[in-house]
Every structure is written in structure tokens, then in C-alpha cells.
């Protein structure tokens, strides 16, 4: 077996162990832990990139390494690295838990990496749980006056119930197809979907994944967790874990493709409700992270648009959008955690005067927000338009119409952020940025612009990748 096939996972396993040993040390070494974690995360990203074009199946065909999974692994590695970048100032985590903090981030990443490569239902489930549990722990790890644990407990129970549903669904699929391997399930799908149990099994299975992506009606945790969790943790949840969820949904939803009209219709409805609800409720939010949570619900709806096409272009758009979402959402969260120097929750109006406090951050914020809103020439615009295009190709006129109108609604609350950052007068002094942060800002801004204007490479990559799962 080629070790490189399992390279990123092995690396992150090793990284987890290193961090585990850090956590065992009696002396609290904040700086050293951070640099170790950051260095490892960077190395992990390199490894993931290095393994990008690996191809093969390992673990008795339970684990498929292809371009599709490797792209997402690279994205996850990138996500982890980026979150590490902004974790220099972990104001809301006890210093002695920093090692654990990084450890759980790593295990979560590891779990998600396995998630995107798994082609066996049980592996998917366990990998999902691994990533979820790490996050369940990370959320209440925050120093706080109760919001953190409240969020943690809600997150946990909603997740537990969802995964209970998922297990039930997996059971039904297992019962109907006698296998847990996707490769064996797919040939039986037509007969399976002829019986209702297959559809319901698939639906229940997707429930667990929709929970991850915070699609309506499994979105209830998102606002609470976003608000209650530490900024860095939420950043990770909002970026990397979304990408992983998209990947696995793309893999699984394929099962229901082409056979189930009503299945697709159900997804359409969920998509529409997700974006409408997310966008409408986001309008009235005051807390920045909470607003972003609702925006993430809306974005989950957008991604579903790509999923329900069940076509190469749609899937490619969804992949593109997931990657885009990672970058743009991270940009916004980066600004958020830079502005919230004490790690506190940020009200939108607390962004006041950002333009004078730090023009660079403002630029990033504007670009990130506009990308989220789907304003060109950003990666978000291109992604959204590609999604709509592929959906329209499949004849989802109303879906596209509603999606586009939703885009307008969403602009309202995004502009409120711009309003606060640009218009309100500053109440605090200028923000000092370290040079890595500055570099990060420039990199992200250029990424948002460059991939928005020149999407071809990424789109081609995504198309090649999704051919692997179709």
C-alpha cells in the first residue's frame, strides 16, 4: 500500500499525537505549542497538496483516494492552517488548554478528511462522529459565563439526535442493500429506490450530514454555536467543516439521483427554505457571528442547488462554491477575530470605524462580505452564478429565481456590516496587525479576486474531481 494514499491522514494523526503530548506536559508553553501547531498545520497543508493527485482505494475499498477527496483534504488542511493563523491570540481559551484546543482541531480535521474519502457508510458515520465530537468539545472549551456550555449542549444534543436519525437511515440502507459499501449499494439503487425504505433511508442518512452543513431543519444549532463558541472554533466550524459536509453530501446524494423525482423535490424545498429562512432571519441579527450563522444557513441552501442537479457541472459548481465559501467566510471571520481582540462576541456595530482603525482589515472585510453576498468580481459571485447556471441547465427555473431574489435580501444585512465598518465613527484606537496577518489579508483578498475573475483553473479542477464521484 502506498503510504501517500493515506498521507494527509497519517500526518494529521501524527500531528494529533504531537499535540497530545504537548497537552500532557505539566508546564504550560503557550508560545511553543502555538508555533508547533502552526508549523505542523502548514506542513500538513503541504502534505495534502503533495498528495493531491493520488489515486487509489485502501482499507478494503472502504476508503477511496481520488482527486475529489484530495481536493477537499487540501481544503481542510488549508482551513486548519488558516484557523491556526488566527489563533495566535486565543484570548477566550485557558492557556493551559491551548494544546488540547489544537489537538481537537486536528482530530476534527482528521475526521473530516476521512469523511471525504470514505466510501463505506459506517466509516462515514464514525468519521463524522469523530469530527463532530471534537467540535462538541471545542465549543464549551471557551471561557465564558454560560453561553458556551449552553451552545455546547445544544450542539451536542441536536447532533446526537441527528446522528441517531442517520444511524437509523444507515440501518435501513443496510437492510435493503445488505451492504455498507457505496460501491455495492450504487448498483442496487434503482431497486432500492423503487421501495420507499431506500428513499427514507437516504433521507435519514442525509439528515446527519445536513446537520453538519446546517441545512434547514437541522440548522438550529448554528446560530447558538456561532454565538456561543470561541471565535476561532466558530471559524473552523464555518469554514472547514462546511466544506467536508459538502463533499460527503455530494457523494451520498448521488445515490438518490435520477431515480427519485420526489427526493429531488424535497431537496429543492429544503434548499429554498434554507436560504430564505437564513437570509430573512439574518436581517434582524445584531451579533456579527450570529448573523454569519444565518448566512451560513442560507449558503447551505445555495450549495444544495448544485447538489440537486446531479450533473457534472452542478457538482463542479458546488465544489467550487464550497471552496469559495471556505475562503470568503474565513476572510470575514479573520477580520472578526482580529477586531475582537479580547476574543469577545462582536456586535455588528462594534465594527464601527474599522476603516480608520485598520484599512487593510476593512478591505478584507469588504471583499469577504461582498463575496458572501455574491457581488463581483469575487469568488462568491462566480461560484453563485455557476451554481445557478448549472441548476438552470437542469430546468430549475423557480429555484434560480428564488435563489437570485434571496441574493438581494442577503445583500441587506451584508451591507449593514459594510455600513458599520465604513460609516460609523471609530470608538477605539487603531488596530495593530502583525506582518503574518497582513500577508494573510493580502493573500486572501487576492485569492477572492483572482479566483473570482479567473475561475477557469479551479473550475476545471473541480470538474475533473467530480467526475470521480459521478
Amino acid at each position, binding site marked *: 500500500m502506498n503510504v501517500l494514499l493515506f498521507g494527509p491522514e497519517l500526518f494529521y*494523526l501524527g500531528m*494529533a499525537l504531537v499535540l*497530545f503530548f504537548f*497537552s500532557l506536559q505539566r508546564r504550560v508553553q503557550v508560545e511553543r505549542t502555538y508555533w508547533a501547531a502552526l508549523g505542523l498545520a502548514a506542513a500538513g497543508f503541504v502534505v495534502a497538496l503533495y498528495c493531491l493527485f493520488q489515486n487509489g482505494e485502501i*482499507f*478494503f475499498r*472502504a*476508503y477511496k483516494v481520488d482527486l475529489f477527496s484530495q481536493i477537499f483534504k487540501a481544503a481542510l488542511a488549508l482551513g486548519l492552517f488558516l484557523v491556526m493563523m488566527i489563533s495566535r491570540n486565543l484570548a477566550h481559551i*485557558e492557556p*493551559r*488548554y491551548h494544546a*488540547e484546543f489544537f*489537538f*481537537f482541531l486536528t*482530530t476534527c480535521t*482528521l*475526521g473530516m478528511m*476521512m469523511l471525504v474519502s470514505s466510501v463505506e457508510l*459506517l*466509516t462515514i458515520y*464514525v*468519521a463524522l*462522529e*469523530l469530527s463532530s*465530537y*471534537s467540535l*462538541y*468539545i471545542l465549543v*464549551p*472549551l471557551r*471561557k465564558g459565563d454560560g453561553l458556551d456550555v449552553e451552545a*455546547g449542549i445544544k450542539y451536542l444534543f441536536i447532533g446526537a439526535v441527528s446522528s441517531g436519525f442517520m444511524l*437509523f437511515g444507515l440501518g435501513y440502507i443496510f*437492510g*435493503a442493500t*445488505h451492504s455498507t459499501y457505496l460501491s455495492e449499494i450504487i448498483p442496487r439503487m434503482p431497486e432500492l429506490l423503487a*421501495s*420507499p*425504505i431506500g428513499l*427514507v433511508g437516504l433521507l435519514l442518512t442525509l439528515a446527519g450530514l445536513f446537520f453538519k452543513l446546517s441545512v434547514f431543519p437541522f440548522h438550529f444549532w448554528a446560530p447558538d454555536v456561532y454565538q456561543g463558541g470561541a471565535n476561532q472554533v466558530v471559524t473552523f466550524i464555518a469554514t472547514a467543516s462546511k466544506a467536508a459536509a459538502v463533499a460527503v453530501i455530494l457523494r451520498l446524494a448521488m445515490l438518490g439521483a435520477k431515480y427519485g423525482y420526489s427526493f429531488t423535490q424535497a431537496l429543492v424545498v429544503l434548499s429554498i427554505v434554507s436560504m430564505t429562512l437564513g437570509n430573512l432571519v439574518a436581517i434582524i441579527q445584531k451579533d456579527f457571528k450570529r448573523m454569519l450563522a444565518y448566512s451560513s444557513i442560507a449558503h447551505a441552501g445555495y450549495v444544495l442547488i448544485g447538489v440537486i442537479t446531479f450533473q457534472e457541472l452542478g457538482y463542479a459548481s458546488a465544489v467550487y462554491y464550497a471552496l469559495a465559501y471556505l475562503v470568503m467566510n474565513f476572510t470575514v471571520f479573520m477580520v472578526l477575530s482580529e477586531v475582537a481582540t479580547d476574543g469577545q462576541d462582536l456586535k455588528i456595530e462594534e465594527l464601527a470605524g474599522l476603516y480608520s482603525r485598520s484599512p487593510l482589515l476593512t478591505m478584507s472585510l469588504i471583499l469577504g462580505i461582498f463575496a458572501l453576498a455574491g457581488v463581483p468580481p469575487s469568488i462568491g459571485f462566480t461560484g453563485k452564478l455557476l451554481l445557478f447556471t448549472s441548476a438552470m441547465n437542469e430546468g430549475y427555473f423557480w429555484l434560480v429565481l428564488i435563489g437570485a431574489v434571496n441574493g438581494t435580501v442577503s445583500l441587506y444585512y451584508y451591507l449593514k456590516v459594510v455600513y458599520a465598518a465604513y460609516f460609523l465613527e471609530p470608538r477605539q484606537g487603531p488596530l495593530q496587525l502583525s506582518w503574518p496577518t497582513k500577508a494573510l489579508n493580502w493573500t486572501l483578498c487576492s485569492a477572492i479576486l483572482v479566483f473570482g475573475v479567473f475561475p477557469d483553473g479551479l473550475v476545471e479542477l473541480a470538474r475533473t474531481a467530480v467526475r470521480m464521484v459521478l
Partner: protein
Amino acid sequence: MNLLSWLISPPGVATVAFILVVVVTILGALIAVSARNIFHNVLGLVLALIGVAGLFLFLNSPFVAMMQILIYVGAVCIAICFAIMLSEPMYLPKPPRSSFKTLGAVIGAGTVFAFLVLLTKKTTWTPAPERSTDWSVTTMGHYLLTEYVLIFEVISLLLLVAMLGAIVIARGGRGAS
């Protein structure tokens, strides 16, 4: 008469035993969710778990049944008991139950239940064309270390995460306060 003779025949005994196990399971489950005393809930859970273990016996797998008792009853329930003791004192007055909420829960859970029951009724299950009859633990172990080895490893990591997490979270506040 027929019934009686049937009852003492092996299938009859097994059926009676089965019904008993089912009743225990469901009773235990009911206690687990309905009793007002949290300890009674745990005991109900234990009962239900043992019942499920019994069902596993009926399903030809004594090993899993044993593990069920070992892990669930032996570990999980004990852990729950510890948690109960660490948390809210028992003597605190309990707020009255809201019938509205109960009704909602019944309706919600009932809908899903009814839906799934209907579904199960509608479905015709087809067994696999070729079925192996190898129920040995050895084979299971073999599977565990071949086809499911990845999960096996991941589970160990999962448990590590859970342990470390439990320690961090449960200990966290004390240090802080």
C-alpha cells in the same frame, strides 16, 4: 390446550422468553424516560439495555449481547450515575411537567414513529441471495481487523478524543472558578 402444549415446546418457551425480554426492554425504556427520579431513569435504562442484550441473544449473537452489558451497563450507566452525583442535588424540588410539552413530544415522536411503522409495513425485505452461516466470534474478529480496520482505529481515536475532552471540559470550570 394446543396453546399450552405449544408453550412448553421449545419454540413456545422461546417465544415466552422473547416476549418477556421485549416487555422488559420496553418497560425499562418507559421507566428511563418517564420516572421523575433521575436514578430511576438510569435504572430503567439499565433494564432496557439488558433487554436489548437479551434481544441480541435472540439474534444469535451472545458476544454482542455480552459487550452490550459490559459497555453500556458496566460503563455508560455508571458514568451517568457519577454525573448525576456530580451535578444537581436530588432534593431540589422538581418543576411540574408541562402537559403542552409532553403533548408536543408525543405528537412529534409519534409522527416519526407512525411514519416509520407504516414504512416498515410497506416494505418487503429480501434476504441476500447467498448467506454465510458463519456466526463465530473469530470471523467477527477477522472482519474487525480487515474490512473494518479503519473504523476500528478511528474508534480508538474517537475514544481518546472523548476521554481527553471529558477531562478538559469536566475539569475546566474547577480550575477557572
